[in-house]
Structure formats: structure tokens, C-alpha cells
């Protein structure tokens, strides 16, 4: 298997596969962060999470088209505006969904799964009716094309580096909001004990709505970042939803650190295996390993000790 490659080649291959894994890792982290808030903190199984992500991707696509048509001079910077718009659009839709649907179902977590699955079907059809069934790709600004030559045999694509930096930034912001801000404290208080949180004067309904909105908003940003490395279709979100749930569960549902660690290990395993075997077998083995470990350690990698 290794006979045809020199040691130097192998090193480069591992670095480049590792880098491909890092891009996958970024997408997983971005998607799983939103889900970790919604599922891990609120206990809502949001099967429509992928569709919130796709909404962000479509918003990015529309923004890029707008910039191309009306402000070609500013095209290089459209992505930053698109990301904010994606966050707002997905977040607003998330808050609406919470108000109409989710808030009636907090006591029945399994039913949120069915209801949000229905929602995801409707959203998919809506995207198909509005944007067409064909996948759309975003045109990247000039500075994001091409790749960085690190050594003579290693090169990394710039858009991948950009997505990774973005992921780090968003993760830090989310961690700050959840663990340092006053609002984050309120969220954690509501999650730990809804009744007591209400008794000390926290408006639990409002906190729920904004938490769900935040989770969906982050999914929107993930979709926005996703356009940098792939094309978007009405059903693209569904492809990632199971992986994302596994990432969150594998990490230990209530732990942001666990989510990141599990996203890292899953994506690295998958992209390393992909080099040695077909993509589908790599995926099967990775998922099998995850399911196997979850059977041995159901609480996930980083579990908070809580009394049930």
C-alpha cells in the first residue's frame, strides 16, 4: 500500500488529507454548534437544522448575485454582509418556528423530531419552488481562489483556510456568549431548572425563543460558509443532518468542548480513511466506529455529570 510513495510524499499526503479533514471539521463544527445549543441545551431534536443551514446558503447566493449585478466594485467583500444576512434570516425563521411550533412541544422531545421533520419537508419544497431544483454555486471573489504553496509538495486552498478561520472566530463568539455573557447565564439557568429560573425572574419563554433563534442563526452562518466549498441544492441540508447529530451526541450533548473534539475526531478519521479506501467505505467505517463507541459510552466523550 505504501510501497509506491517515498516518506516525503507520504508526509505531504497526510498533511493534505489532514487539511481536507480540517475543512470538513469546520463544516461539522459550524453545523454542530447550532445543534449543540438547540439539542444539547434545549433538548429539542431539530431535524430541520439542515434546512436552516441551506437558507443561509441561499441568502449568501442571493447576496453575491446582488453584488455582482449592482456593486461589482465591492464584490470582494460581499461575503461578510452575506454572512450577517444569513444569520439574521435563519435566526428570524428560527424564532418564528419556535413561536409557532416548538414551544408547544418542550415536554415531548420525540415529537419535536416528527414535527421538525415535517417542517424540513415543507422548507425543502419551498426552496425547490423558489430557487429551482438545480444546485446553485456561489461565485467566489478573486482573493479567495487559488491556493497557498506551503512547501514544494504541500498546498492548501485559500477558501478552506478562510472557512477555518471563520469557524474559529464563530466558536469563540459562541463560547463567549454562552459562558460569559449575562444572557448565556440565563440560558444555562433555564436549561438546568426551568421553574427556578422563572422564579428568580428570568423570562423563560423569551430565553427559549432567542436560544432557538441563535442556534438557527449559527446554522445559517454555517450554510453561508458552506457555499465557499460546495454547491447548494434544496436537499443538501438533509445530507448533513445525521452526521451533525452524531457529532453532537458523540461529543456529549451538553458540552461545547465535546462537540468540537468529536467533530475533529470524526472528520479527521473520515478524511484519513478516504485516502485508503472508497469514500463510502470510509464513511461507513467512521460512522460504525462512532456508533460502536456510543454503545460502549452512551454519554459521549465529554459528559456533564447531572442527576436525572
Amino acid at each position, binding site marked *: 500500500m505504501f510501497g509506491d510513495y517515498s516518506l516525503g510524499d507520504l508526509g505531504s499526503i497526510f498533511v493534505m488529507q489532514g487539511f481536507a479533514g480540517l475543512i470538513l471539521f469546520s463544516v461539522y463544527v459550524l453545523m454542530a454548534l447550532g445543534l449543540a445549543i438547540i*439539542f444539547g441545551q434545549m*433538548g429539542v*431534536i431539530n*431535524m430541520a437544522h439542515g434546512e436552516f443551514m441551506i437558507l443561509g446558503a441561499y441568502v449568501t447566493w442571493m447576496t453575491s448575485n446582488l453584488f455582482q449585478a449592482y456593486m461589482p466594485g465591492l464584490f470582494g467583500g460581499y461575503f461578510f454582509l452575506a454572512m450577517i444576512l444569513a444569520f439574521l434570516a435563519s435566526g428570524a425563521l428560527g424564532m418564528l418556528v419556535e413561536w409557532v*411550533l416548538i414551544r*408547544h*412541544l418542550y415536554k*415531548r*422531545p*420525540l*415529537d419535536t*423530531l*416528527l*414535527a421538525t*421533520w*415535517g*417542517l*424540513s*419537508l*415543507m422548507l*425543502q*419544497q*419551498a426552496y425547490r*419552488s423558489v430557487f429551482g431544483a438545480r444546485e446553485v454555486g456561489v461565485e467566489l471573489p478573486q482573493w479567495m481562489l487559488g491556493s497557498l504553496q506551503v512547501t514544494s509538495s504541500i498546498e492548501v486552498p485559500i477558501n478552506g483556510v478562510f472557512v477555518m478561520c471563520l469557524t474559529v472566530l464563530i466558536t469563540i463568539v459562541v463560547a463567549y456568549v454562552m459562558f460569559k455573557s449575562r444572557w448565556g447565564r440565563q440560558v444555562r439557568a433555564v436549561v438546568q431548572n426551568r421553574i427556578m429560573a422563572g422564579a428568580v425572574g428570568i423570562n423563560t419563554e423569551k430565553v427559549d425563543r432567542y436560544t432557538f433563534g441563535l442556534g438557527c442563526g449559527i446554522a445559517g452562518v454555517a450554510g453561508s460558509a458552506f457555499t465557499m466549498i460546495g454547491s447548494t441544492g434544496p436537499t443538501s441540508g*438533509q445530507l448533513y443532518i*445525521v452526521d451533525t*447529530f*452524531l457529532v453532537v*451526541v458523540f461529543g456529549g450533548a451538553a458540552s461545547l468542548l465535546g462537540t468540537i473534539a468529536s467533530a475533529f475526531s470524526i472528520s479527521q478519521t473520515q478524511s484519513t480513511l478516504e485516502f485508503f479506501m*472508497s469514500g*463510502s*467505505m470510509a*464513511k*461507513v467505517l467512521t*460512522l*460504525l466506529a*462512532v*456508533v460502536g463507541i*456510543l*454503545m460502549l459510552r*452512551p454519554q459521549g466523550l465529554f459528559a456533564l455529570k447531572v442527576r436525572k
Partner: protein
Amino acid sequence: MTDNRFFNRSELIGILVLAVFLVAVLPLTLDVFRLNLVAKYLTYAFVALGLVICWGYGGILSLGQGVFFGLGGYCMAMFLKLEASSVENTKIQSTPGIPDFMDWNQLTALPFFWKPFHSLTFTVAAIVLVPGIFALIIGTAMFKRRVGGTYFAIITQAVAAILTILIVGQQGYTGGINGMTDLRTLKGWDIRPDHAKIALYFFEVGCLFVCIMIAQFVRHSKLGRILVAMREKEDRVRFSGYSVANFKIFAFCIAAVFAAVGGAMFALNVGFMSPSFVGIVPSIEMVIYTAVGGRLSILGAIYGTLLVNFAKTSLSETFPELWLFGLGGLFIAVVLAFPNGLAGIWGDYVQPRIERLIASRKPKPEGWTDGSVADGAPAE
């Protein structure tokens, strides 16, 4: 009221109505094409029936029923495919006597796990045992460690994803994304002409009623009551000395076997099997059939399956755009407004009216007034 091990009087009437509907009304009113469609829908009814026991009574939501449906279906399809790939049927291939997709993928010999499927006895045993043992392993691993609820749902979903990717990826062994097509005969008996389709339909209905009887038996046994108790207050059942895990494993296994029988019927009636009936989307759809019919009602699940599928076929024929909106809306409506589905609507709104109607028609015995005597108990 008859106190039977299988059903009480109103359930008996319900089962008889369903039997008349499936055995007489549908075959007499529908042409063979439509009847075959009903046969296809009824294969999902097996899965829905299993979900009533597992999810409705046991409270275990499995999003991986497509896995068991697929395992059963693939076992059956492998047998039929082997019979269709006899040496004289496949003499144009570079290796005659193996299924066509293997030949296309440059396989020259039958893989070892295909060989036992030459035998019908083995196949029938495998249809029940392979999914049953698989469910036993998953169930033991999960329930002994007290994994339940949402986690179980997500992990079964992952299993469904894994199996789909595996089937699609291993084209040479499984037929890949196209699945196993061109199934022809069962022990020399052609399954494709109209009279065979009708016979298979009746065979399927027979199997369905066997499964209904098993489900009814479970429901009326002590086991069924423990399942319900477990769903409502798991800890109390555990503290009463029952092994909660074992009961859950049993419910999950029985649901798996029902689903596998459904899958095998699918391969027989529809004439092919493909990974598009294994993955996450079909698995969740099967849960929806159960939810629409009523997760607590054995017969409701069957009506729910038929209704959703009829709606799916007719709506997607006429308004392909609207169908997903309709289906999505249906899920949300069922979850929000009618958690007990059709059976709940029937039990809460329709049945009381019918009973009142019947009661008002009946001439009242002399000296009796409404409400003075409770439920026919003799007045002292």
C-alpha cells in the same frame, strides 16, 4: 364482554371490518395494478404494526425501521435474484450463473454469503433471524446501558444511514443504488403475471393478519401491560423488580421482525428491492404512518399507512409541487393537534356518536331511564 387472550368484542369487530375491507372490498373494486399498489402499501403496514408495539406501547422510538425492512427485503430478493440468474438465463454474461450486477462489477464467483440463499428454507429463516438478531444486538447494547429516548432514535438513524451507504457503495455484492431488479420466479412459479400478483396479495394479507394477531396477543398479555407501565414510569417498573431492558429488547426485536416480514413481502409483491427503502427518509416516513394512524392503535396504524400512501400516490400524481407541503403539514398537524392520530379522532369523536346513535334507536326496557343505571349493571 368476551375476555379473550387476543381481543375484546369491539376489537373483534374492528378486525373483521378490516378483514372484509382487505379480502373482499379492495380486490373486488380495484384492478390488478391498483391492487398491487395496495399490496405495496401494506408492506409498510407491517412496519407500522411493529412500531405500534415498540413506540406506542414500549415508548421506544426507532428511526431505523428501514434497516429491518431492508434486511428482510434483501434476504428475499437475494433468493429471487439467484433463481432468476440461472445459468441458462445468464449465458450471455462473462460468468454465467451469477446475478447480472455482479457480472457488471467484474465478480467471477458468487460471494460466500450469497450461497445459502439458494435454499428457500434458509431464506425464510434468514428473513426472520437476521433482522431479529441484529435488533437483539443493537437493543442489548443500548438498553442494557439505559440509553433511551432521543439518543436511541438518533443512533438507530445513524445505523440506517450506515446500511444505506454500505449497500450503495458495495455495488458488486448488493446491486448498488439500483438495488436488485428483474426478480422473476419463486420456486419456478412466475411472480410477475396478474394472477400471481393477486395470489401474492392474498398471501400478504394473510401474513398481515397473523402479525395483527401476534400484536393483539402481546397487547392483551401481561407483557403488554408491563410495556405500557414502562413507558409511563420506567423507574417504578424497574423498582418493582422487572428487567426493563429485557422488555424493551423484546419490543424492539418484535418490531424488527415485523418490519422484515414487510420487507420480504415488498420484494415479492413489487418485484425489486433497493436502498431507497432502507435509509433515513423511508424510516421516518414509516414512523409517520404510525403517527397518522395512531401510535396506540394496532388497526389504526394499518389504516394510517394506507391513507398516507393513497394520498401520496394521488397527490403526487396530480400536484407534485404540493405533495411535500401536504405531507409536512400532515406531520405537524398530527403531532400538534392529534397526538393519537386517526384512531384518537375515531375514539374521541366518531365512536361516541355512533354509540349514542345506536343507544337512542334501541327501545328502552320498561322502568329504565337514561343514566339511572351504570353500564348495564343489574339494579338491586
